[in-house]
């Protein structure tokens, strides 16, 4: 898709502090940070990694509501496309903003927004920033730690058994549900990193549960 390619080629490294200045153009409708409320635009806390049109209690335009059914996620690429000219991306949105022409401005404000989204490895609650909600049948699988131990040999070349963090994070002692979410997010390509997306892609639900169970037991 031509549009995607040209955006990708222009993608800059965003500076959150420069992004704060860009965000002044958004402040008339959007809030971020502590006490952020929905106003003419939804609160943008947690927007990065969330599903388009998913902010609780916000009255989206029909255009946005229809768009949200596509289950697309707000990430670096989609935000960049949208912010270039919102009305091109989601026609008939009630967001009356012309757009950010400069790629650097877009990268900066996206980086700024990221600081208000939970994009850390370990999420604090069951619903992570990706917007993924796993069904009860998956979350209730009790993993076999012995099977997990066998499967873990494939992981432990990179994720050290001694939990050291030298470019690849240690994963010992993770809460089971966080671990299960992380691997399912990689499996569904909702979380970046092609190595992990591939590794998780070859794991079934039982195997993910087994690994979660095993790694949770490690120091």
């Amino acid at each position: 898709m031509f549009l995607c390619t040209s955006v990708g080629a222009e993608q800059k490294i965003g500076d959150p502090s420069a992004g704060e200045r860009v965000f002044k153009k958004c402040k008339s409708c959007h809030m971020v940070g502590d006490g952020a409320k929905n106003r003419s635009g939804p609160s943008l806390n947690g927007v990065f990694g969330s599903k388009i049109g998913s902010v609780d209690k916000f009255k989206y335009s029909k255009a946005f509501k229809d768009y949200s059914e596509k289950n697309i996620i707000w990430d670096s690429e989609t935000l960049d496309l949208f912010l270039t000219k919102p009305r091109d991306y989601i026609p008939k949105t009630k967001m009356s903003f012309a757009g950010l022409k400069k790629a650097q401005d877009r990268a900066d404000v996206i980086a700024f927004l990221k600081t208000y989204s939970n994009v850390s490895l370990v999420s604090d609650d069951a619903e992570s920033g990706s917007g993924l909600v796993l069904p009860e049948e998956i979350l209730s699988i009790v993993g076999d730690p012995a099977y997990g131990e066998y499967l873990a040999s494939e992981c432990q070349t990179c994720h050290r058994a001694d939990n050291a963090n030298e470019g690849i994070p240690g994963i010992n002692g993770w809460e089971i549900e966080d671990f299960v979410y992380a691997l399912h997010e990689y499996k569904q390509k909702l979380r970046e990193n092609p190595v992990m997306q591939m590794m998780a892609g070859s794991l079934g639900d039982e195997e993910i549960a087994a690994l979660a169970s095993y790694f949770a037991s490690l120091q």
Partner: protein
Amino acid sequence: MTINRRSFIQTAAAVTASLSAPMVMASGKPRVVVVGGGAGGATVARYIAKDSKGAIDVTLVEPSRTYYTCFFSNLYIGGFRDLGSIAHSYGKLASEYGINVVHDWAVDIDRGAKTVSLAGGATLNYDRLVLSPGIDFVDGAVEGWDLNAQNKMPHAYKAGSQTELLKAQLSSMPEGGVFAMVAPPNPYRCPPGPYERISMIAHMLKKSNPTAKIIVADPKPKFSKMGLFQEGWANHYSGMIDWIGSEFGGSNVSVNPEAMTVSIDGEETKVDACNVIPAMKAGRICEMAGITEGNWAPVSAHDMSSKVDGNIHVLGDASSQGDMPKSGFSANSQAKVAAMAIRGALTGSKVFPAKFSNTCWSLVDTNDGVKVGATYKATDEKIAKVDGFISKTGETADVRKATYEESLGWYAGITADMFG
């Protein structure tokens, strides 16, 4: 399934072996001998010793007292690592895992008697044997070059002193001098290796000898991660590298180590340093064990056992490894499958279906890393690829930096996995 049915029928020795049930040996514990202490051998020895909790006697035969990883040796050439940082000792395998580490050469295998003969004179008995000897070079593969010439034109394809030698030769090139590499034909150890090496040499020369020239004579029409390397060479080392593939005469090569010339498609060039990487075959001990077919040792994907002798497992570069590349990561992955199968056969422990994976990281320039990888499963025919990925051209600088940093994490991880 503890006994490989084909070997049961084929060899009398296997019939004898199968009658003496491994669990009830007069001499005590079942014994595993591992030949080769690299990514395959060290890993399999550690996993068998660790997971059998002492129920299996493990002997590791490795001639080097210090192991220099081939992977990341290019980074030493490029000046990103010092030699000591890629050096590893076998001390922990001996002291913490109770592995009998023997620094010697295996010179012969008697498959009937199930013994390994060592250069120092000793004989080792095995119930299961793992051969993970890496590669040796095919005689006469590059016209004008043999192992006697490795001092003038190093292969540096077994890491350690050869790598140090090559780097020293590169450093002493005259200003504007010429470096030539003769690249190997498929299949060979570490598909992106020669091209990461070219990148690292270019990086080093750009700083110390920016008018120097690099020529690559390649018998192949294309190579691993070609688009990514060529993008990087154009971005970082423009004008320095001339890659001559098979379509441009790169397969018609001869060298003269005495005169320090390289002839490519009839055109002779004087060179100041030359890296000859000849065609490869399984480490010679496999041939001597009688388990090779052509240049490599065919194995069952389910447990890495030799298709010729079910009591012998072959790991890493020396094996016919199906869709997997000949990489350190692959050897380490295969080692775990073999360890599980061997423990199952010798102690009755649970054996799960084989799974394999590989990721190869290459450094193109400072903070510019690329990678390629895949997952695999065992089929009756071969180790078969399931899914894969590769870095893309045009990726942002932060993606390439993250890829490089990931490789650092992997290196620390795999060496801990190998050596404890």
